Each structure stands twice: as C-alpha cells, then as structure tokens.
C-alpha cells in the first residue's frame, strides 16, 4: 500500500504558533508513515495568496487536504475542485463557514481545533482569581479585525463582564515591540492598573517587559503557550498563559487524514486540549513542549487503532 499523500496549508509562518503546528504535522506524518507537503500564506493578512496556493495544490494528486484558513471563507472556492475529486477535507484551527461550504457543494470531514472564545474565557477566569474585584485591566489585541484575536478578546471580556473594569483595548499587531510601547503608555495613563490580557504570548512578553520596567505589580496573562512564554512563566515573570497546542492540532489533523483515507467515519468535531499554565505547572509543560504536560484525550488515535 502506498503511503497516503497529505497536502497541508496553514496561516503565515511568521508566527511561532503556526510553526509549531507545522512541526506537529510533519512529525506525526513521519511517525504515521504519511507523505506530507506543508504550505503557508505569505503572512497573516494574505487571504488570497493562501487561496492561490491551495488552488495549485488542488491540482496535484493528494489524498487528503488539511486546511487552516485565514478567514472563514477565503479557501472555500479553492476547495471546490478538491471536493469534486471526493478527497477528504480536514479543517484545523480556524473554522470554515459551514453554510458557504454547503453552497459550494462540500462539507468538511472534521474540524479539529480549540475554541478561542473558551480560551479567552479561561484567561479571564484566571485574572478574576488574581486581582481584586473591580480592578482596572487593559487588553492588548492583535491586528485589528483578526478573527482569532477578536474571539479571544471576546471570551476574556465575557468572563470578566461586570467584575472587572476594562479601561482600554489597544491593538499591537501581534508585535512585541508595539505591545511594549502600548503597555508603557497604558501604565502611564492608568497608574492603578491591575492586569493585562494579551491576545497572544508574543505581545504578552512585550507587555511583561513594560511592567517590569515600570516596577509595578501588574498581572500579565497571555495566550498560546509558546516556549518563551512558558519559560517566562516558570521564571516568575509572566503571570500565566493559556496554552493551546498547535502541535497537537497539527498532529491530530494528520491522524484524521490517515483515518479518512482508510475510509473511517470521523467525528464532526474534535476539541483540542487547552490548558492554563501558571507557575505551578510551567516546568512540566516546558519539559514536554510542544506536547502538553500530560496525556490528553485523542479520539482520532483511538480510531486508528
């Protein structure tokens, strides 16, 4: 039997989150004896470029397509020829809009990913534990308009609604230096600020540095669980981060592909693990990086057995 050929397309590789995802895809593929080609958009704003690349890959003979779209619909048309060839489509990380997919005449075989709103809420709950009720907090978002950033911010806001005072939301474009500058400014404007929530870890690390420089005791919570953030949490700098496991999402995607190629029935929705990391469990997480600190439920692994 030939090894299954998998085409994967992820968002921009200018962010470690997606590099880890790529790592997961490639290493799982090696372990499972699957042939994989990973492509990525030029950057996180390159919605059409991502579609163009998928279009090119759709022309080639792959057995399964693993897609992480930049927006809910930018890959829909590029997937039409894939669906016509009756190849399975595995959607990871960011969702493809179901209605659009239906209009275009296909459904995704499965969706594997973490719920960004839930992850944001997890961060919000942790913040509630850390600071007194009614404290002022500030939010640092990614590129304005980014869906993931919006969802994470939304989850955090929902969790702290009425309990904390969100004084400002700035956008730092996923950039560490911009987050640092913005946090410095916010600390100047709100000397009594108690906490920051940042929509990803890179920006959280920049915020943390600003807090350190100011010498104040301000909590900083990030989201993603990249290795630098885990190190920072372990060192007692960053307060906490909500770890998502892009490695696992990628790896599960490959498993799903393998299962689909074998003709197995896939569950429509596979939740990927999310974990809050603070000083208590940071060391353990670091040791296992990029895999989670402990075991996690993986229905797909069961399926392949």
């Amino acid at each position: 039997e030939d090894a299954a050929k998998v085409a994967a397309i992820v968002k921009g590789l200018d962010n470690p989150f997606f590099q880890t995802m790529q790592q997961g895809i490639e290493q799982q593929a090696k372990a499972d004896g699957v042939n994989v080609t990973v492509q990525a958009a030029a950057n996180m704003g390159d919605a059409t470029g991502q579609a163009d690349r998928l279009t090119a890959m759709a022309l080639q003979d792959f057995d399964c397509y693993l897609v992480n779209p930049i927006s809910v619909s930018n890959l829909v048309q590029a997937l039409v020829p894939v669906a016509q060839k009756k190849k399975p489509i595995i959607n990871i990380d960011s969702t493809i809009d179901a209605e659009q997919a239906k209009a275009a005449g296909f459904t995704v075989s499965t969706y594997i990913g973490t719920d960004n709103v839930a992850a944001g809420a997890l961060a919000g709950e942790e913040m509630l534990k850390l600071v007194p009720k009614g404290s002022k907090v500030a939010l640092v978002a990614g590129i304005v308009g980014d869906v993931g950033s919006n969802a994470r911010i939304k989850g955090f806001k929902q969790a702290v609604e009425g309990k904390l005072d969100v004084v400002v939301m700035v956008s730092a474009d996923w950039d560490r230096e911009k987050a640092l500058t913005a946090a410095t400014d916010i600390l100047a404007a709100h000397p009594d600020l108690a906490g920051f929530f940042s929509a990803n870890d890179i920006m959280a690390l920049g915020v943390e540095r600003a807090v350190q420089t100011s010498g104040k005791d301000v909590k900083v919570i990030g989201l993603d669980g990249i290795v630098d953030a885990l190190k920072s949490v372990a060192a007692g700098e960053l307060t906490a981060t909500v770890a998502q496991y892009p490695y696992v999402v990628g790896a599960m995607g490959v498993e799903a592909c393998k299962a689909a190629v074998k003709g197995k029935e896939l569950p429509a929705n596979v939740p990927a693990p999310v974990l809050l990391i603070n000083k208590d469990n940071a060391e353990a997480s670091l040791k296992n990086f990029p895999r989670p600190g402990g075991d996690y439920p993986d229905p797909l692994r069961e399926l392949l057995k």
Partner: protein
Amino acid sequence: MSNSTDNAPVAHSAGAPEESRSSLAALLLDPSFWADWASVVGLVGLVVIFGIAQPVFLSVANLQALLLAAAILVVLSIGQTFVVATSGIDLSLAAAVMLGAVILGLVNAAGYGIFIACVLCVLATSALGFFNGLIITAGKIPDFVVTLGTLSGITGLGLILSGGEPTMVGSTFLLKLASGSFGPLGYPVWVAIAAVVVAHIALYHSRFGVHLLATGGQAESAGALGIRTNRVKVAAYTISGFCAGIAAILLVARIGSAEPLINTSLLLNSVAAVVLGGVSLFGGRASILGPAIGALMLTALVNGLTLLSVSAFYQPLAVGTIVVLAALIMRYQK
C-alpha cells in the same frame, strides 16, 4: 589639412531617420524594445522553467487557475499604473479594496441586493480616489503622505463600519462571477481583460492618456501648455479608486466574505507589477500590457513554487531573488 576631402553632400548621415522599424532584427537590437517588454521576457522564462520542472504547471487546469488568481492583481496594477504615470503612488490601494469589500458586504447584508451593493462599493472607492487626488493637488501635499494617511484612515473606517467582524456575502451572482466561465476563461479573467483593453485605449488612444503622461513627465511644462495637471491627477486617482472597487468585488466573490483586513502584499505587488512592467516611478512613461504581464508573472511565481512544493520558508527568498533577476536580465539588454 585645411578643407576636408569629404565634402560630398551626405544628407543627414547623422541622426538618420529610423522610422522603418519593419525588420525584426532591428527590433530585437533596439534596447527600448527589451525594456518595454521585460515583463514578457520574465514571464516566458518562468513558464519555461516551471513547465520543465513540473509538468502540472502547464496543464490547462493550472493555467486557468493561475489566470483566475492573477485577475485581482491585474486590475489593481492597472489602477496603480495610472497613478504612477503621473509620478505619484497610491499606497491606499489595498486599503481601498478592503473598504470596498466591507461596504459591499454591509450593504448586501442590509438587504439592498447585490447589484446596489456592488455599485456602492465602486462608488465609494472611486470617491476615495477622488478625495486622495483632491487633497494631493489642492493641498500640494506629496502623494506618499496623503495616501499613507488615507491608508491609515481607511483601515480605521473599515474597522469601525464592520465592527471588526467579517461579513459573509452569500450571493449567487458573486458565486457565479467567481466560479463561472465563458469559453476557456473564468469571468474574473474576462473582467481583467476588459480592464486591460479599456485602460490601454484610454492611455494610448485618448487625449487624456497623452495629458496623463505629460503631467507625469514634466508637470510644469504641461501646465504651461494649458493642460490642467491637477484635474489629470485627480482623474488618475479616481481611476485607481475605481479599479480598487472592481478588485474588491472580485475579491469578495473569490473569498466569499468581506473582511476588514488589509492585504499588504496586494499593495506591494501592485507596485512591483507596475515597475516590472517597465513603468517609471518618476512618471511620464507608462504601459498597460507591461504591468498586467508583471502581475501575471508575480502570480505565476507563487503558483510555480507551490507546485514544486518549495517550503514556505524558502518561498520569499525565491520570490525576491527571481524579482531581482528578472529586473536584472531585462536591464542588461539595454
């Protein structure tokens, strides 16, 4: 030696007329021919290399997909060409596409029907271009500053209008536009072809075109000859905005939703296509086919590299190298 022995009346051996360009050899030896057709040379080179390395590249399906993918960039490059020909630059082009898309999405979502939505989209982006031109000419502010300002301003406007959320556009008309085809080519490709033809006629067969080039070449002299250089500039920006509107419709049709996100590579690529197409950033020289083919070349590059499964890490390096090489080869012909 006093009087020369060579006194035969050689009528104009210096600066002899060169109008008889009929012979192909003369054409191929003329450096300006190569400069004008550099993007073609680059495109043909790419097609040959990719075609040999990966036969799928030359499959009809891939060529169709390639053209489809290039349509948006072609339309944008045409808009950019008009502005660059006046020795300006429109940095707000990609942002205008975003704004047009958002307006299209919102108007459609509000239930006004897709046609009204499309018309309003194009009107809004054209108005934006008009506004750009007006500020540049009336305020005498450099193009770069104004369009950088509107780039930033529109980003904000798009976000505020859309609340930062993407709007789904589930119109059958747009779906057909994106996926239907007439003859061997998809509708978006026909739109791009139409844009090329109309722009070519406007540039080369209308008074406006000559005035555009004159304004870009030497605005002061053009003004002294009675050309309303300010009006010409405003018109160029308005055309650029119009093209952004058309591109926005194609974009929404292609990705099925209107998102308040700016695709900066569209902006840089639109300018790169224009320059690869042999249009001087200092104005006064322009071409429509050149930029269109430049846009095609840039799209083919990404397509070919993807087909060759070049890793995403290596793609930017390859693109950069090839862009410089293309320019290098084309200039060495001169």
